[in-house]
């Protein structure tokens, strides 16, 4: 198995790291979209995501990784458990599934299990990537180059949280709740607004401008390539600490208060920027709350909001051909107007 670069060894990229931590604390925030030039370490950060996440409890032997706490019979594997009976569970790392660009529809949604069909003549469903990603993360590199029919499929499943397969004589539905993580270079292609909207936060990734940081990146990367295992071990303690911190923030999340005033500010901000729908407000509020929890605070303040707003709103703005300024600047302007400088 390829060894991922440890999360705690990533230099700089504060927005990116923050966004990933926020979705790790509260997956309901939605996904993360990382946009930026090549060679800035977008994929490295995403692939290191698994470092942050504590293992989850799943129904034993369930190919869809169902939660033992939730209603049973949600998926074909779990329906064999009788209600009221004790369910065997096991602990599993949170899945972070890589969706390759060239993936076929079969591979993504799942298809007839050819092996069983050929050898035993049995009609069985072989779960696809969506099933694997249930309760975890689905990472799409170069998401802006994804084929249209896959985009349609993802938009639908990401909204409903359920994958319905009606093909090849199979009729199966199973839960597919996952957090979308995408990365790409905006110069190579645009994303459909509907797909953009499925991402909770967006970050712009740039190469560190500071010389020392660059040198540090190269040194660490070089050490990693020379001996990945040893390098990972040297950061194991840091990763563990980070994971504990995320766990703590998750526990604290429920207690974080959001005042009505703050909600009103959220709404004002979104109104000012003319974002469509209420998803922007919801995401902004959830992300700010998770941010407050990460900082160990008991309530969300306007400072938190100020920090999170660019991440949560930047990609939801309507393109205005007259306004050349980056969407980040527009969010800043609206922030200043609503919150005061």
């Amino acid at each position, binding site marked *: 198995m390829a060894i991922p670069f440890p999360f705690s060894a990533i230099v700089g990229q504060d927005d990116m790291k923050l966004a990933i931590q926020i979705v790790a604390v509260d997956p309901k925030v939605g996904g993360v979209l990382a946009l930026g030039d090549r060679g800035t370490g977008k994929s490295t950060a995403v692939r290191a995501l698994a470092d942050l996440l504590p293992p989850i409890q799943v129904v034993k032997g369930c190919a869809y990784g169902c939660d033992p706490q939730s209603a049973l019979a949600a998926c074909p594997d779990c329906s064999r458990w009788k209600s009221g009976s004790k369910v065997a569970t096991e602990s599993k790392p949170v899945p972070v599934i890589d969706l*390759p*660009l060239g993936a076929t529809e079969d591979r993504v949604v799942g298809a007839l299990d050819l*092996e069983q069909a050929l050898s035993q003549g049995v009609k069985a469903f072989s779960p696809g990537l969506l099933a694997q990603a249930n309760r975890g993360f689905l990472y799409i590199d170069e998401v802006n180059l994804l084929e249209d029919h896959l985009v349609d499929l993802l938009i639908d499943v990401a909204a409903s949280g359920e994958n319905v397969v009606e*093909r090849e004589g199979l009729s199966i539905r199973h839960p597919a709740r996952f957090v979308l993580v995408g990365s790409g270079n905006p110069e190579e292609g645009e994303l459909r607004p509907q797909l953009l909207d499925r991402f909770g936060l967006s970050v712009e990734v740039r190469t560190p401008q500071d010389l020392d940081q660059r040198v540090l990146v190269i040194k660490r990367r070089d050490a990693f*390539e020379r001996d990945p295992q040893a390098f990972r071990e040297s950061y194991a303690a840091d990763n563990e600490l980070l994971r504990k911190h995320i766990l703590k923030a998750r526990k604290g999340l429920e207690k974080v208060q959001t005042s009505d005033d703050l909600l009103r500010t959220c709404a004002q901000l979104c109104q000012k920027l003319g974002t469509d729908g209420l998803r922007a407000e919801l995401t902004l509020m959830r992300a700010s709350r998770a941010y407050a929890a990460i900082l160990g605070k008991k309530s969300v303040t306007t400072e938190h909001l100020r920090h999170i707003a660019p991440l949560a709103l930047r990609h939801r703005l309507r393109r205005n051909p007259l306004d050349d300024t980056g969407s980040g600047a527009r969010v800043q302007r609206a922030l200043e107007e609503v919150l005061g400088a």
Partner: protein
Amino acid sequence: MNLAWDDALWAAAALCVDPTGLRGVWLRAPHGPVRDEWLTLLSSLHPALRRLPGHADSERLLGGLDLGATLHAGRAVYQPGVLTQPTPTLLLLPMAERLPDDTAAILGQVLDMGQVNAGRHQAAQDTFIGLVALDESLEDEPPMAGGLQERLGIWLDLRHMGRAGGEDEHTRWLLDSLPSMDLPALREHALNMPLDDVVLRAVCQTADALGVHSLRAALATVRLARLLAALRGSDQVQDEDWGRAARLVLTPRATRVPAPDDQQAAPPEPEHPNESPPEEPPADDALEQTPPDPLPNPPASELQEMAEVLLEAALASLPADVLAQLAQANTPAPSGRGQGRSGTRKPSFLRGTPMPPRPGNPRQGARLHILATLNAAVPRQKLRRLPSHSRAKLAIRTEDFHVHRYAEHSPTCLIFAIDASGSAALHRLAEAKGAVELLLTQSYARRDQVCVIGFRGTQAEVLLPPTKSLVRAKRSLSGLPGGGGTPLARAIEQSLQVALAEKRLGHTPSLVMLSDGRPNVSLQGQGGRAQALEDALTLARAWRSHHLSAIWLDTSARPEPQAQQLALAMGARYVPLPMANSNRMAQAVQAVQSGRTPAAPVAVTRPLWQSPPPAGAAPVWRQPGGA
């Protein structure tokens, strides 16, 4: 000594030692003796060199079900893809510039992860590959996919090399002795070579000075330099190695020329050298427990010296004209990848170049792909027991149906924005109209759509919505009166609206702006040159941000700087037509569309547009010399 060839040989040697670490080479060269010689040499040094199939699909690359063997054996048999290589192997990728984006993405992912993830039935397998991507694209053609370019460590350009040969004696010796060397040990030796901070800083600084921002490039430089040192049989990376590594990795990626002379290598040292260890911003402090590695600041002089050596080496291999080109690097590349007549590609069921078949029902014009359908049905035969009275050999169900798919070139829509203001009318509105008529005839022959926007006074209006009707286009033109102000901002705005609408329909819009570029009416319809220019520039930038192609024909008596400035802001090709007549204008547009530089003016005594050639007939202006 032929430095470039010498470098190319060292690159080949380094690639053989560590294909995986360098990720490979992007080799730009036409098919010819130079490339052949380099490849012959590479394959003699690296016998494991394998050729990837030209239009490999993902199944061949990543592996998948082997249908024949599966049916034969009665159980699923999987075959590994070409990308799965258990030992360090170089893969030869011919015609890399024609590689579809999705295949390039797959290759990039495999290079990044070092493993092949074929499918749910096969566990991810480690792989050790490097790519030798052969790119034969010409100057005006799009090269290999950017994502893949970026990942390959070495960039070699043999396009301008007249002949191979002329390497150093030392290089000859190296190539002769390489086959007998223990390559894995050499690689290990290279990787463990010590690096000090001074050198790393110098590499980063040089990359920065050349405008190379990707950190992959800096990493590849470091890796390559150590390999080169190991190949020399040395224990230490020396200036020679750094120079060569910089020439092979950094220089070809350069996007700008470093500031001249004294500032050239002056390190952009922070004001207070002792404060430079990276400080994590407060937001992350709580989480980022890693103390930043201590970076002792090297003496400035040593660093400067090192950076100078590197930069000098890097610049040594740049021919003078490249430097000149880089100096003008601010000139935007013509926007839009599918510029001009070809249009962009879109999928179709009916016509175009074939694409892999997809499951679907043969209706709405889609045709059944018989082979793919059979392929889909065959593995499922055991499941579908045919009734005993059936005489069919194969049980095919609707879900097996695959249909043909094609990629179709989308039609181009030419948008003409015609300046009918007083200043322009004075000069030659008539000529402009004539040119447009010529182009219209030509577009008609090509089945392009055309749209005409006229602007004068305070308004820009769509005189002719996108159409293929030549008659209507001509009528709308003849009715175009002249005189009034120049509301350029309005015109660009209007064009942008039409262009975006066309783009949504799947067409490829392309703007032809005929104007003298002297706006004097603002977006609000107010007079005033300053505000008018400001608005026009803003909209021009908006145009460019949409990656739409455009050409600006300057109709003023002599080239107008403002028009140039606006064309630059739009990302448009600027063609001044100081002595123009209609014919020349038509030629210019045609030349730009087909990617050539505009031809010299052709003396035509009779304005051709008065009697346009019949549609379909070979237009006269195609042969500049023949008219």
